[in-house]
């Protein structure tokens, strides 16, 4: 029998509460945050079409506006993202594609 200890260390981050969700996406501006891979260009276009059918007035801040979320400049891109999201009047965000 072995009595073993824990292999991890204590967390260094505190949990944040998730942002308050709207009741509907009608009239909202949706940001598309794409990491540049895994068919995100196709997927976001399909999403746009389907959400436009369901929610009148929905708008998109497209992934082309934000640049690639990743790569060598990722730290810089993510540091600048909050200001970009605010300047585009973004209400909610969809990111992808994680593989």
């Amino acid at each position, binding site marked *: *029998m*072995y*009595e*073993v*200890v*824990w*292999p*991890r*260390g*204590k*967390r*260094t*981050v*505190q*949990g*944040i*509460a*998730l*942002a*308050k*969700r*709207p*009741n*509907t*996406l009608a009239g909202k501006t949706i*940001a598309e*945050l*794409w*990491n*540049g*891979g*895994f*068919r995100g260009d*196709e*997927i976001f276009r*399909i*999403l746009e079409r*389907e*959400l436009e059918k*369901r929610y009148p007035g929905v708008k998109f801040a497209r992934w082309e506006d934000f640049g690639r*979320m*990743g790569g*060598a400049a*990722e730290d810089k*891109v*993510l540091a600048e*993202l*909050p200001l970009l*999201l*605010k300047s585009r009047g*973004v*209400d*909610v*965000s*969809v*990111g*992808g*594609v*994680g*593989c």
Partner: protein
Amino acid sequence: MATRASVVPEQIGIPSVVMVCKGFETAAEFTAQGRGTFNMPKAVFGRHVDTFTTSELEEHVRTSIVDQVVTALTVQPPDAKPRMVDPDLTDIVFSGTFEEVNEHFYTNEWSDGLPIVPPTVEKVQAFLRFTDRRPEEAIGSLLPDSREATIWSIAVNGVMAGCRPEHMPILIALVEVWPTLALACAIQEQHPARRCRSI
């Protein structure tokens, strides 16, 4: 990458969801938790997106992903807390046979499934004899889970990996430089099962 970006809106009060392929949910959770988001909403593809034909992808997004995205953005998820209280460094967290210890560590995602040497206090202390540094000293915080790397936890992981006690100074040196390596940071966050060694 996708999850790291998707956490940013939440940090400034904008609801967010990340789309991931089936099989990568845990990787996304680790990454989100390491940035303080313990219940990051996800929309999960039924399989890897590269295996869909164009028409299958269209159908899958229309009939599954859109609904998941809408739910994630319009239904308030419950506030989540860390799933377990962190034990103290020297607490005994499990007792069992070699096989049971390995199964327990694998189940808790403390190992990658390869066999580990059970980290007993005696074995860890043997490693600590090869450094003058205090066991509780934190060298830094490591991704993806943003947890302290202490002299103690380095020794524990050295035991698990099958290192010899005299390897301890090298293990400490590796962890000291690890957070400064861009490659290492990328590898750490892309997938929990991915590993990198550098000597």
